């Protein structure tokens, strides 16, 4: 119970070229609107160097083709009929699209070949290595595995906390309470997590739900309209999963914070806190403390570790009974003003 057991990742198999146009490369489309529905099925990019020279064995034609300075300069060394022949050779394959870096241009005759073959030609002002970097990052995100989790995702002091637990345990109510205290809602009920650069999970809501929320007994409310723009955000890195549970006398809960096991989602390890709840327990404040404690740890201070080391130090000193008595209190004598 609690954490959804059917976490099947959703994999994007293809995206249309029109989606890639959103990548931050300031694309200019040189081929009107043709071929924008072409599918991109691979996140890797390809430079067609040898294919342009006529060798199309092992040509990764299904990838996005990048024409850098090498390709453009090579084409320039050829006569126009040879240029046309070289391009015709590679456009017989169903290339998803061609990208010209450094604002390079192709002859109108070559552009026309691409239009006929329904291959969009996109131009960017960035140099090849920058274009590679920006586009790889964009495509990596698009083709990343994603999962949907049932829970409430809130940014608490800049720490992304996902509350999970059985339905009706009060996840949305905790989120609402946190929003009241100035924290920000990322998504409620349906949280989409995407793996980024292998070690990071980014969370967001769905386009339909956005920042709507269901509160039992009230119905559906819109957090953005009620609390304003500062109460929401669209994306947040997931840092902690708080698993809410009904109080169980038999279960054991961590007392020192030294024995927490992380949770694995999409192969990424995420800190987990198991939190038993019962009426009257202020989970909101605990959530804030969890966030602040996480920040302290991230910035190098682990309270449970520090306390444990202090204790070990004391044990090592083997101080006698008298000294223990003296040191029991933080201060050795009370000041006279009785303040």
């Amino acid at each position, binding site marked *: 119970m609690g954490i959804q057991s059917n976490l099947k990742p959703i994999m994007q198999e293809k995206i249309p070229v029109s989606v890639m146009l959103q990548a931050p490369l300031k694309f200019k489309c040189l081929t009107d609107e043709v071929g924008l529905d072409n599918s991109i099925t691979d996140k890797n990019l390809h430079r067609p160097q040898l294919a342009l020279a006529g060798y199309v064995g092992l040509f990764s034609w299904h990838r996005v083709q990048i024409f850098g300075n090498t390709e453009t300069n090579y084409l320039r060394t050829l006569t126009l009929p040879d240029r046309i022949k070289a391009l015709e050779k590679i456009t017989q394959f169903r290339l998803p699209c061609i990208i010209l870096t450094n604002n390079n241009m192709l002859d109108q005759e070559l552009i026309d070949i691409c239009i006929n073959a329904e291959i969009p030609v996109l131009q960017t002002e960035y140099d090849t290595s920058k274009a590679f970097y920006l586009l790889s990052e964009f495509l990596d995100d698009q083709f990343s595995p994603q999962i949907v989790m049932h829970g409430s995702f809130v940014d608490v002091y800049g720490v992304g906390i996902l509350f999970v637990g059985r339905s009706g345990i009060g996840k949305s109510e905790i989120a609402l309470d946190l929003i009241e205290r100035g924290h920000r809602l990322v998504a409620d009920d349906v949280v989409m997590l995407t793996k980024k650069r292998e070690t990071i999970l980014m969370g967001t809501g769905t386009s339909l739900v956005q920042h709507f*929320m269901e509160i039992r007994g009230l119905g559906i409310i819109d957090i953005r309209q009620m609390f304003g723009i500062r109460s929401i955000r669209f994306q947040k890195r997931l840092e902690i999963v708080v698993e809410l549970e009904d109080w169980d006398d038999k279960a054991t809960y961590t007392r020192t914070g030294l024995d927490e096991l992380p949770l694995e989602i999409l192969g990424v390890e995420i800190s987990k806190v198991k939190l038993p709840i019962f009426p009257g327990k202020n989970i909101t404040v605990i959530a804030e403390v969890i966030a602040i404690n996480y920040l302290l740890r991230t910035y190098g201070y682990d309270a449970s570790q520090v306390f444990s080391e202090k204790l070990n130090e004391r044990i090592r000193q083997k101080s006698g009974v008298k000294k223990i008595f003296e040191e029991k209190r933080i201060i050795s004598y009370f000041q006279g003003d009785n303040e």
Partner: protein
Amino acid sequence: MSVLEAEVTIVNRAGLHTRPAAGLVKMCSKFLSDIYLSRDGFSINAKSIIGVMTLAAEQGSTLNIKAEGIDAEEALNSLIEYFKSGFGEPI
């Protein structure tokens, strides 16, 4: 604990809109089992109304139900009936 699965089709004209979604969630909440609904791999907790509505399931679309728990069979059967009935709406 048993895990049961079934495929269901939306038969009513208006699809799985707010009213049937609320009915569905109410029905699921009566059972102890964990119940998930999924469409094209997008899986949500069937006890969450926002989740169910996220599926935006129109007439003719197929959903997968997965029930996990001690009353999974009972839950699955009542859900299948509810889907078959078109949520009591015009077909």
